């Protein structure tokens, strides 16, 4: 263990304070006495339930679509692979509101694909399904990136050994590859879920905001801040607790514990 040079200590403490102080402020200002009362309000309950439904659905869809994609990116070579990888990671750096606008132009009623969907009777804007699509759009990259790294870490010789011992590709995938990648998949899913839970910009732009249908927790926080700051703080606290729980679940992977 080395002593910290003073030159580094001050900026490092500044960085830690930048994250720490707002969280402490949130906890200190929380209306603890009426917290239960705040969280029992219909708006809070609707938003909480909706957030759980949407974020878990988005994670399930991300898992079903993202794991095969991650495997293809990690284990095969195909033309346009780099383009696909760039496309998949783009939502990580794209402002979510821009993602929401793009989703509207694609799947909105007048959108590129949306017009056909509307003809089939499928509408996404202003529906819970739309909120799930928005969350999946933003959260999927986190799963893909984590899963791809997980697949890459597996020694290909283990898979080859399974094949030599007579395992069919499907069997080897199920019994060798996926179990070895499980920690990375779990971490990716948790990260994906946390991101989906916190999604704001794409959801409010693409799916709108209506209690019980598309108004997830972050949207409820934003609206509540205008007329009922205590409710906004209480809801924020719920999101904070959930985030901390996700971090604790992932501590072995990230905190180096």
């Amino acid at each position, binding site marked *: 263990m080395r002593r910290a040079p003073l030159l580094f200590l001050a900026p490092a403490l500044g960085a830690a304070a930048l994250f720490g102080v707002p969280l402490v402020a949130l906890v200190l200002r929380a209306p603890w006495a009426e917290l239960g009362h705040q969280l029992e309000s219909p708006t809070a309950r609707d938003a909480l339930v909706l957030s759980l439904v949407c974020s878990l659905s988005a994670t399930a869809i991300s898992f079903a679509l993202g794991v095969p994609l991650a495997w293809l990116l990690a284990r095969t070579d195909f033309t346009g692979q780099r383009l696909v990888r760039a496309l998949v990671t783009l939502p990580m750096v794209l402002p979510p509101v821009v993602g929401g606008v793009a989703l*509207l132009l694609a799947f*909105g*009623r*007048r959108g590129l694909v949306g017009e056909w969907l509307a003809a089939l009777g499928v509408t996404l*804007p*202003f529906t819970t399904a739309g909120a799930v699509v928005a969350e999946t759009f933003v959260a999927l990259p986190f799963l893909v990136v984590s899963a791809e790294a997980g697949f890459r870490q597996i020694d290909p010789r283990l898979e080859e050994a399974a094949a030599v011992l007579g395992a069919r590709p499907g069997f080897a995938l199920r019994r060798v590859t996926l179990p070895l990648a499980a920690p990375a998949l779990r971490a990716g899913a948790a990260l994906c879920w946390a991101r989906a839970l916190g999604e704001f910009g794409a959801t*409010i732009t693409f*799916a*709108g*905001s*209506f*209690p019980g249908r*598309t*108004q997830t927790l972050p949207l409820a926080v*934003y*609206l509540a*801040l*205008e*007329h009922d*700051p205590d409710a906004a703080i209480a809801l924020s606290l719920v999101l904070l607790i959930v985030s901390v729980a996700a971090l604790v679940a992932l501590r072995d992977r990230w905190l180096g514990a």
Partner: protein
Amino acid sequence: MRRTLCRFAFAVALLALALPARAQESKHELTVFAAASLSESFQALATAFEARTHTHVTFSFGASSLLVTQLQQGAPADVLATADEVTMARVRDLVDAPRTFAHNRLQIAVEKGNPKRVAKLSDLARTDLAVVLAAEQVPVGKYAREALAEAKVSVTPRSLEADVKAVLNKVILGEADAGIVYTTDVRSAAGKVDGVEIPDSQNVVATYPIAIAKATHEAGEANAFVDFVVSSEGREVLGRFGFAPP
């Protein structure tokens, strides 16, 4: 890696150079928080005001309720203009006596050509229509509910939007068939949406107050701006955008 970083820094530097260096030209900066429905008219007012006084006006447009909350949290506004008196009253300790400078009315914004044949407020109850309203805490959301109550119409909106421009944009984009906005908003989006009149008996008169923040460091400029907004010239500019005089 280093080369990528260099290129990135170079691109950012170029962008920064391309930004207008207007802030340095004028001595005085005025920050005005104004209701979203004032976006176009206040930009025009500021252009006229800047030409005369060499004070640079910066705007933050948004739902009045959001702006008031930001002011309560210490946002640095010199002047506040809201779309109703109730919202302004929430910060009566933070601003000087408000002055009424304009009135507005509601209209139903519909898609260009009105393909769904919306003719009156009661049509908004039709189940084949996707209707959006502003959230209840936003002035235009509250006014819309008053008008709907007056017409004894019950509407199930698809979405509760954060401000009046968000309602308007949902109609412009075609995601919503109809939304209740101000007449001035329909006018500002002429060519993109059509407006359906609401008869006076069901309509609401929106009252716009403007006030100077007590915490302003630019009291002289703030006063001059408010005087300009309520002057006959200011009234004439607002009239061009469809606002009625107080």
